[in-house]
């Protein structure tokens, strides 16, 4: 079997024997928290997407500063009510989310199952409220650059919201399977981290979509 060869320099016959200085076999085969490899992947993707959010925000500020009206005269800013409802519900979900994370850390399967079901349910409700928000933006994306920007910000956040809710739902289903692996607990904890991201990124977007048109004003 050629694959089983030692890393010896066969061509020159130079031999590089190995000197065993220790064993890794006593290390755990999964950990939860910052040492976990997958957390680094989640954080890396949050960094990329966070950059995307920041650039969209910058684009919004840039376009608003062109002095052509934000919103242009004759256009009303988005209705506040659904935006406020969404924000409150989202912040409440964050409390639940932190609780779920603690259950994951504690390897409390029953608690984790309950928490994940709840957070999925809240997520579905949030998507519903989001739909109402979209119906009350008071501008179409094709009306003007202001409208395009408002929709850009909303679509960006909504796509993350839907992705994370779908991801939570799938992971929840997996938690109800017969055989549970240790890495499903760290996976659930990663999911909580991502939910933090969805909550945190909403706050500046909320400001840009709902409050900037009110304070920046028309031209």
């Amino acid at each position, binding site marked *: 079997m050629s694959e089983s060869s030692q890393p010896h320099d066969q061509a020159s016959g130079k031999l590089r024997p190995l000197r*065993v200085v220790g064993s890794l076999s006593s290390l755990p085969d999964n950990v939860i928290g910052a040492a976990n490899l997958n957390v680094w992947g989640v954080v890396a993707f949050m960094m990329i997407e966070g950059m995307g959010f920041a650039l969209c925000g910058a684009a919004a500020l840039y376009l608003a500063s062109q002095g052509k009206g934000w919103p242009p005269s004759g256009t009303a800013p988005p209705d506040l009510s659904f935006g406020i409802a969404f924000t409150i519900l989202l912040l409440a979900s964050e409390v639940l989310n932190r609780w779920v994370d603690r259950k994951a850390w504690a390897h409390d399967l029953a608690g984790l199952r309950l928490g994940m079901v709840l957070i999925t349910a809240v997520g579905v409700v949030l998507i519903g409220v989001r739909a109402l928000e979209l119906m009350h933006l008071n501008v179409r994306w094709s009306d003007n650059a202001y409208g395009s920007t408002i929709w850009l910000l909303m679509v960006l956040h909504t796509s993350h919201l839907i992705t994370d809710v779908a991801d939570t739902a799938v992971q929840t289903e997996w938690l109800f399977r017969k055989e549970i692996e240790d890495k499903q607990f760290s996976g659930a904890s990663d999911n909580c981290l991502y939910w933090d991201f969805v909550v945190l990124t909403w706050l500046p977007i909320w400001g840009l979509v709902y409050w900037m048109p009110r304070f920046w004003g028309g031209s």
Partner: protein
Amino acid sequence: MQQAELASEEARVAAIWRDKPGLWGFLTTVDHKRIAARYIVTTLALLIVAGILALDMRLQLSQPGMERMGPQRYNEAFSLHGSTMLFLVSVPVMEAMALWLVPLMLGQRNMAYPRLAAYSYWLYLGGVLMLWVPHALDVTPDLGWFEYPPLSGPTYSPGHRADIWAQMITFTEVAALAASVNVVATILKLRPPGMTLARMPLFLWAMLVTSLMTMLALPAVMLATSLLIADRLVGTQFFSPNAGGDVLLFQHLFWFFGHPEVYIIFIPAVGFISAIVETFSRRPLFGYTVQVLALISIGLLAFGLWVHHMFAVGLPRLGASFYTAASMAIALPVGLQIFCWIATIGSGRPRYDTPLLWIIGFIVTFVLGGLSGVMTASAPLDLQLTDTYFVVAHLHYVLVGGAMFPLFAALTYWYPKATGRMLSEWWGKVSFWLIFAGFNIGFFPMHILGLMGMPRRIYTYEEWTGWGTLNLVASGGVLIASAGASILVANALFSLRGGRRAGADPWGGSTLEWDCASPPPPHNFPATPVVESRTPLWRQEHAQAVMTGLSLKRREVLITSPGEAVPEYRQYSPGPSIWPLLSAIATGILFVGSIFTPWALVWGSIPVAVALIGWFWPRPVKEEPR
């Protein structure tokens, strides 16, 4: 532990890491070496194709009044050449080299996220098809390698040429982001015990900085092209001034990426150079800390540079001047690095084999290119030279001299490791001198043509301009370089079978990849190496210190802490899977569909979701391995 016992353990590990044979194995592999190899081969094939395209342009320009190409054909040719060279060759080839090298330099068995690596390649391939299949059908983007609105907007560019360019970017950038995340996580979390940050080979530092830059820079160009597509497809108004939009927004976003882009190509090259200079000087690199700091400062400067457009210059003076401004700020850290390399060579016992020749070719060319950059960076000259052949000369000096020569150095340096065979030194030297001379004969005259006022992006010129002679010289030089390139390719192909056997460490290298067999087996290393210095192979004891204890039943990699590389846990490493390919196909359908209808984003996301669920589906541990 006895050597015999180690060997029997290794046989079991080898069985776990081996791919299935045949086509299925090809489609499902997550072996970083196989993925990187196909990545590299694809980029090199495109380098050749886009090079032939360039040769075609040079033939067209070799004499005044040539009629081989009309203006439209010429526009298509340089757009295709520039876009291919930057988006499908330069950036991906560097990532591909990292996918191949990073685990080997770390003494590891795979990347942090093996399936993500496979996904990255398949998406990249989608980007290649996105640009070149329509070209075969005669729908070629024709607005250069950056396609500004309003020219690329719905009004002035009906049809799908601009969409194709924009979605090619989306494909390749998602692929690049996937690769970068993988590289960062691998370098920070999969280092062998003992390889602290301060003992990390410079190539790994270079890839770490590059990948972080990629993650911060690429979202900008994806946003720019997505907004462009939205304007073209669903009637948003981001870039239409009469509806409150602003065309400069595109340029700002594009150059927020465009500035760092040059460094994203150049910094991996710095990594190659450092590795090669060290080995062929046969002494540890001079000024390691200075080199690391220089790398980091280049990374920071790259983003800082963009700011001068926003505050100092007021109106963005973009496009051409970007290369020159880039070379100005880069001058100090790169100057330091060049000094360190020369000091290493000067104080070592250098061996002038082909890889080191390429490095010296790089230094000469890059210094010349840098000088011309400094020239154009002075404002009055710049006005004179912007959009002339001076810029064409300069950007090729930077890109070919600064990135391609180090790449060729790297390919000749690691070829024996990848194939188990040596390249012919003699033919290697012949191809080096032909390409080096041909390139300089081909591109140096363009500086003068620029000073004489020849504009870039013209498909022909007239007799009275007096540009004919120098253009003929330029085209002749490119022909010489092409002959050299053909020899290089032939050498690589013939040596695959006919080359001398290389053995594990033909050059006397200093880093871990030279400790495993050539070519490396699927599991790379028999056990986890323990590192005690920056140059682990130049050690006193003959035997390599290792740790055993990774599973013999399933694929595992060792996870260590990001700073001190202290072992933390044994991570299960996913095996072969068809899902990355299926996910890439689903993503590709979504991207292509969204050129035609916005609904593709909605319906197209369903297969993507299905594929991703399949990808991450948890399998009980006992099902592994196959």
